[in-house]
């Protein structure tokens, strides 16, 4: 049995796919905003940006379709007992997700190939279903992940599942905060990442209007979203404290149940407590219950076998997310403040460098947040119902698959970066009239 290899393989595939999901959900909105601005103002610049971005959107979508298909394979290949036992409990959500995905794929094709071939109005309208479908698609997937954290909507007696209530499954207690958290993260990642590309270009001396507009619009959207994300993060932390106290304990490395629980910045968890680091008194109690005196459940409240196996991974992932999130919030505030009060865009070297770093940093924060929730749920695949070790396949050879897929995904990542860079340096399509070459 290759539990670690199976977990790594799943983590690799999900970690890759989740980045593309962000672009699948948020990027079409950016493209449509640009096209909408063109239709309103007739300023050709917006059309040029929309067109350029639509090509990038198509590439990222095509790769996302692929990595999403792999995930549906892996659910069965790696976790057959999980699927056998609970496939019919949450499957309904995936059936709806498949529907949304279908709509997304259909209109993606129409929109991307329809430039200059459909009327302007029809073309714009054909793009609208894309982000809506993307939103619904991620809603249903998040719903299943929420259910794994908060399994409700079924009865289980002696290992037999009965009385499945699909709507209760769909709208479990973890669904709402996870969904909002993920969607905002998608806008942050796509926004900061896109802005970052143009910030770097401007640092290299490109100072045309195209680059400025293409940086400012996504940056502003991400900046508007980021402060909201802090509030949603707080909501998520409190729900986790109530429903998954052991995950919260792992986030801090809180060995013993206590009131006035502190939170450590940095440090290392070993022997039931955090060694070193900067302790902030009462912070964990405040984080979890908005009350410095609140009692927070520690890892010692459950047997060792029921605790996450990698406490320090959870701790570091959570802290990385918090630190980057705070940094992005600061950047957002500065940008929005200057724009609001002074009516101007900062274009200094330091600011551009910060924006350039914000893109990759937002991806790191995204992955960290996801690692926090997934590793923090261990040893359970379905919280308190099924252990990951009981769900895994009995087939051998999973480590081989993990290494091969690792190499393939590395190649794929380079391919995506190569293609996007090449796209950035390729000539723009002239307005009007289909061209002779194939479209991406």
């Amino acid at each position, binding site marked *: 049995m290759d539990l670690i290899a199976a977990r790594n393989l799943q983590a690799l595939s999900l970690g890759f796919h989740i980045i593309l999901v962000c672009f699948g959900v948020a990027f079409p909105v950016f493209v449509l905003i640009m096209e909408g601005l063109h239709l309103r103002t007739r300023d050709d610049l917006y059309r040029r940006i929309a067109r350029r971005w639509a090509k990038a959107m*198509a*590439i990222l*979508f*095509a*790769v996302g*379709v*692929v*990595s*999403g*298909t*792999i995930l549906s*394979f892996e*659910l*069965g*290949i790696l976790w*057959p*007992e999980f699927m*056998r036992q*609970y*496939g*019919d409990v949450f499957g*309904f959500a995936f*059936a*709806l*997700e*498949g*529907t949304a995905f*279908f709509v997304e794929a*259909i209109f993606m*094709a*129409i929109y991307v*190939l329809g430039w200059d*071939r*459909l009327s302007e109005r029809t073309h714009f309208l054909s793009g609208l*279903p894309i982000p809506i479908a993307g939103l619904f698609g991620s809603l249903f997937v998040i719903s299943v992940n929420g259910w794994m954290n908060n399994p409700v909507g079924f009865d289980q007696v002696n290992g037999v*599942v*009965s*009385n499945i209530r*699909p709507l209760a499954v769909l709208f479990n207690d973890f669904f709402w905060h996870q969904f909002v958290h993920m969607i905002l993260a998608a806008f942050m990642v796509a926004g900061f990442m896109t802005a970052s590309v143009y910030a770097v270009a401007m640092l290299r001396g490109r100072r045309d209007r195209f680059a400025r507009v293409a940086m400012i619009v996504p940056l502003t959207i991400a900046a508007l979203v980021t402060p909201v994300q802090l509030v949603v993060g707080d909501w998520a932390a409190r729900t986790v404290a109530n429903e998954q106290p052991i995950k919260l304990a792992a986030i801090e490395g809180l060995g013993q149940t206590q009131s006035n629980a502190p939170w450590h910045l940095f440090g290392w968890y070993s022997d039931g407590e955090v060694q070193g680091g900067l302790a902030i008194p009462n912070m964990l109690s405040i984080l979890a219950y908005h009350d410095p005196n609140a009692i927070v459940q520690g890892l010692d409240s459950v047997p060792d076998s029921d605790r996450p196996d990698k406490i320090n991974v959870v701790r570091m992932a959570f802290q990385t997310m918090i630190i980057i999130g705070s940094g992005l919030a600061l950047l957002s505030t500065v940008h929005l403040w200057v724009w609001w009060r002074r009516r101007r865009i900062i274009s200094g070297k330091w600011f551009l460098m910060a924006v350039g770093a914000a893109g990759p940093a937002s991806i790191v924060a995204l992955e960290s947040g996801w690692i926090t929730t997934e590793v923090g749920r261990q040893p359970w695949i379905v919280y308190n119902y099924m252990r990951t070790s009981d769900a895994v*396949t009995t*087939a*051998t*050879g999973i480590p081989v*698959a993990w290494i*091969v*897929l690792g190499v393939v*995904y590395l190649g*794929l990542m380079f*391919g*995506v970066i*190569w*293609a996007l860079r*090449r796209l950035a340096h390729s000539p723009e399509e002239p307005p009007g009239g*289909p*061209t*002779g*070459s*194939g*479209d*991406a």
Partner: protein
Amino acid sequence: MYEVLTVFAAVLLVAGLTLYAVLGGADFGTGVWDLTAGRGSRAARTRSLLHSSMGPVWEANHVWLIFTLVVFWTSFPEAFASVMSTMYIPLFLAAIGIILRGSSYAFRPLARGTWFEWPTAVAFGIASIMTPFFLGTIIGGIAGGHVPPGNAAGNAVSAWWNATGVMVGVMAVVTGAYLAAIFTMADAERRNERDLRNAFRIRALVSGVLVGLVAIATLPVLRADAPWLFDRLLKGPGLIGVIVSFALGGVTLWLIWGMRTSLIRWTGAGAVAAIAVGWALAQYPYLLPTSLSVQDAAAPSATLWALVGAAVVFVAVVVPSLVFLFRLQLSGKLAHALPPAERDGADV
């Protein structure tokens, strides 16, 4: 009532698989013709037509696979877990094929004229063959009764690497090539590109005959390797599918020969669909012959009712969207122009 629901779920599963075999299969076939198009300006025209014909429906065609998987695990979780865990080797190889294919397809327009052109072209072609082949071996392995219920309970290799599995795998590859040739020929006719229509007519005839020959060769293999399936397919409920498939296949060849292209998309697709339905009828009531039946494997009725609800949403939302897409596609609204035709012999 519950029995009706289970049959409904099984019908959805077969429908998804059939649509994937036809639409996804044709996509894979496009890769075969792309790989074998050769070099020069004529090959460039051929490739351009292939991509113009398939591009708009490309992503949607592959969502049928996800549709099928989702219906499978929602309705028949135990069978899904058994198939996926036993068949992990061909599934993994197909997955690699899907990654290479999807990504090389996305990168190719940008790779044109760079060092990256050749690797993406080769990856695309090879993946277009290996993906349907390995998916086909899985179907062959299931139909041949090699997947027992349980966590990776079947033999990891012999469950699919057996005579029936390999024949179905080969069948999947040639069927896709055949469908792609038909669809592209019809598209060339619509666009009034005579040279390409003729070129794909030859391809359609050759691959059509090949499909027939492979189908005939499969029969003695099935008889020796999977006698239960053979009996059910040729002496039982599956026979109707086999007959319809051969009949439609013959009609399609005749239409292609006479260059009457208006109906060939439908008759060609019908021939492939008929054999898929025939296989399903032959297997019924078994999902995993002969150890797990549809009724025994089916999810509880609440789940199946939810699936009915999802199906209603699907019909209300996806079907009109698909119709819209296919109408745009079949009327050429999303097509791009081809490089100009040159006289034969003028190829560089």
